[in-house]
């Protein structure tokens, strides 16, 4: 309860789930992802197997290569609803039976959609692996999407959107995405909104499943306390007969950065603070400059002593936390600065935020700061690849993005090789300067006069308005 600091996304949202593991040769100097085996079954399913024997737990992570960008227009939330309904009924089990069998062994099993893909996780104690695999394969191969369960979940999700809007910090990212990306599929609310969720039918869900949940469109990673040969045999037995068909390719174009300044104000009349994000279009996960950008962002807004948090929190007490991040997707995702401050200091905080961004461009970073950020990223990395669930997620994502263990095994070397010239270059190329999107949630009657100066027009919405 009541942490001193906000949670840093360790510079990168998506990357957080990822990165590496640790072979320890010479202390922290060596970093090596534990070996894992990659197998492609005859039906096209990709298996990734990594043994980890420290705790008697086995973690699964599967990726189906279709996320909310594949949602039909006007029915945003289909990918997410499909994922949620996987465990709500199969050819041989009701939702209740699945829940009972799963809970009885203390297992976990769930799936959710991201923009680019659907991700599922499952975890079982080693002794229960047979039951675990039976349940995992059943929900993935045989879901029936019963009408009653679909209707129930839709109603819950519509209400969940309303409940989420009662807490500004939980929805600012969705509003920001929608405003920044506009009609680009990356602007869609992954879970859908009050109206689009209600518009989805059971047939939409079944069709999404039929179209995209195919073995050649799926990656299944497992990490934990097992023997590779035996696990490979068990997985082949469970998933080898899954008939393949080709899933349609999802074509997306890169989003273009917003030109000029645009501002959206969402009125939440009970707000005592203004929550805001400022930024523009960022980078994809596979950017060749990712590590250098991560180093600069660490200094700019990625850790407690960052420029943003020093100015807005440590030196002035204007906020509890200020940070920045590049949310990395298959194509260019958003870059944002995120913070909040009380109504009366809204203008002061935004001025300061823009000033810090300007200083980054004008002054860059120092040799000493560069060294500090390098130590920080390297020192904080091993705990991100400590557990079987982290490792299973990491290798599944690397595979999805067309990367492999080299992404991890060269991570420290790439950090070490970075120079001040690299920093200058990535600041200029990737951190927005004049072209900025502003999204604010706050009490419009108090803050609107102050924020007019940040953009030629103020666009307005009410938090109770349907959609984002």
């Amino acid at each position, binding site marked *: *309860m*009541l*942490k*001193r*600091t906000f949670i*840093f996304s360790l510079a990168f949202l998506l990357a957080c789930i990822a990165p590496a*593991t*640790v072979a320890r040769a010479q*202390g*922290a100097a060596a970093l090596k992802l534990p070996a894992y085996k990659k197998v492609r079954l005859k039906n096209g399913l990709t298996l990734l197997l990594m043994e980890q024997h*420290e*705790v008697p*737990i086995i973690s699964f992570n599967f990726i189906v290569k279709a996320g909310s960008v594949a949602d039909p227009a006007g029915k945003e939330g289909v990918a997410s609803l499909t994922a949620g309904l996987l465990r709500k009924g199969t050819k041989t089990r009701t939702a209740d039976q699945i*829940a*009972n069998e*799963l*809970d*009885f062994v*203390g297992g976990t099993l769930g799936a959710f959609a991201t923009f680019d893909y659907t991700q599922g996780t499952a975890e079982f*104690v*080693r*002794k229960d692996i047979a039951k675990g695999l039976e349940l995992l394969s059943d929900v993935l191969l045989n879901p029936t999407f019963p009408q009653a369960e679909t209707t*129930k979940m839709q109603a*819950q999700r519509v*209400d969940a959107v*309303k*409940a989420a809007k*009662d*807490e500004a*910090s939980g929805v600012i990212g969705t509003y920001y995405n929608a405003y920044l990306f506009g009609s680009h599929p990356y602007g869609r609310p992954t879970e859908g909104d009050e109206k689009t969720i209600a518009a989805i039918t059971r047939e939409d869900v079944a069709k999404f499943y039929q179209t995209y949940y195919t073995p050649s469109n799926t990656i299944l990673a497992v990490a934990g306390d097992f023997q590779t040969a035996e696990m490979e045999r068990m997985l082949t037995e469970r998933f080898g007969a899954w008939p393949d068909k080709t899933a349609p390719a999802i074509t997306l174009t890169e989003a273009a950065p917003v030109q000029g300044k645009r501002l959206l104000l969402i*009125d939440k*009349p*009970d707000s*005592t*603070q203004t929550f805001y994000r400022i930024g523009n279009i960022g980078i994809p996960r596979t950017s060749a400059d990712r590590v250098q950008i991560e180093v600069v962002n660490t200094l700019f807004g990625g*850790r*407690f*002593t960052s420029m943003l948090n*020093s100015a807005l*929190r*440590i*030196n*002035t*007490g204007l906020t*509890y936390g200020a940070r920045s991040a590049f949310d990395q997707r298959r194509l260019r995702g958003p870059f944002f600065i995120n913070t*909040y401050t*009380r109504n009366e200091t809204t203008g002061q905080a935004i001025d300061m935020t823009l000033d810090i961004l300007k200083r980054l461009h004008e002054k860059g970073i120092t040799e000493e700061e560069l060294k*500090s950020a390098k*130590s*920080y990223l*390297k*020192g*904080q990395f*091993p*705990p991100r690849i*400590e557990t079987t669930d982290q490792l299973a997620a990491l290798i599944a994502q690397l595979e999805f993005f067309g990367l492999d263990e080299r992404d991890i095994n060269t991570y420290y070397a790439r950090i070490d090789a970075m120079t001040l010239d690299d920093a200058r270059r990535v600041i200029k190329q990737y951190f927005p300067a004049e072209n900025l999107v502003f999204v604010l949630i706050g009490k419009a009657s108090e803050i609107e006069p102050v924020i007019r100066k940040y953009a030629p027009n103020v666009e307005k*919405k*009410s938090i*109770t*308005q349907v959609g984002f």
Partner: protein
Amino acid sequence: MKSVTRALSLCLLLVAFAAPRAASAQTFDVQTHTLKNGMKILVQRDPDIPNVALYIFYRIGSRNERPGTTGLSHFFEHMMFNGAKKYGPGQFDKVMEGAGGSNNAYTSTDVTVYQDWFPRNQLDLIFDLEADRIQHLAFDPKIIESERGVVASERRTSVEADNAGLLWEQLWATAYTAHPYQWPVVGWMVDIEGWKMEDLQNHFRAGYSPSNATMVVVGDVQPAEIFALAQKYIEPIPSHDPPAKVTTKEPEQLGERRVEVRKFAQLPMLMFGYHVPETAHPDYYALKVLQTILFSGQSSRMYQRLVDKDQLALSVRADYDFAFDPTLFVVTAQPKEGIATGAVERAVFEELDRTKKELVTEQELEKAKNILLANFYRQIKTINGRADQIGSYEVFFGDYRKLFNAAEDFRKVTRDDVRRVAQKYFADKNRTVATLVPEREATPQEAGSR
């Protein structure tokens, strides 16, 4: 050197709860040493990653406060990062991050906990940083004012802009009339605005004696090197009197209490608090089993009834956290739109009543124990999680070895125990109900869309 090193090698045998199932075993060696100034050090070596988690638990929290300075423990926690003698303002974080480390801290009703996470080659530096602030914390008036703003912002975010935070605060303020659990850990806003320098200095003197703290170190370390570092950096710090004992006991509640919060919101919210005993009480385990049967997983009774079958709520959960003194078992339900809060209430009460009248099934009992075992594994799978668990058991149960007995303690719980604690604690007159009632100022856009 008079200090005594006691090495305990404990084998944590987690025999699976259900007898016919295969047994799993975990070894888990903790070595302990108590410094001459009274600080106890617990070390568990885990070379899996080249990192270390170092936690310091101080036995002081909001229960040690008084009206007028509520939230002081938490504010003080913030001040511990704002400069001491060797490392001035901003240096603690700057130096630690530059060395590849990071940190955080949290304050609860009972404890203040400082957490450092860092590469193993920085042990010396981390001890130097910790010793400096424990011994020589500075109190700069300008920094105090700035940090006051930070904490006020934290309160605005976690209470004013969060319906669950707001309702939680009102629930405890209503359920407690005498005991200090009645005020929020973050403090009332008027107190946050009013603390004085001497309040902070008094707090430091009261709570931050080494004898009032326990250090836990988990990671790629040797216990002997940790004890040596502690002797070098921490042992010279003199101890003094611990904070005054909290002697107030909350009188028995004699009837249901209700509190309502009206504010702008789209959906209502409900919380129910029942007085239950402190963590070290023998009924703790049966209550955790009961909580698991009622609330854990989609097959749990409350989920099945409220979310799945009757479709009254979006979610339902229960919190029963570690505490030195008798605390609350809190049920939180998020009703669906258009559902009367009374209907949600009735369903919650009926499910609680059922556990008082009928025994839970054997299958439910075994399921709960399996879930608790799996959760246990999840809590100890990281060095951070293990440091937190070892420290919490040492502080709240009085002995970290209780952690290794947890599996056995849960296994002993019977169906009769579960019914007994349900009858004992889920009485109507022992209950406080907090309701968030949405008030909406209609706007033109909204009128159009509904």
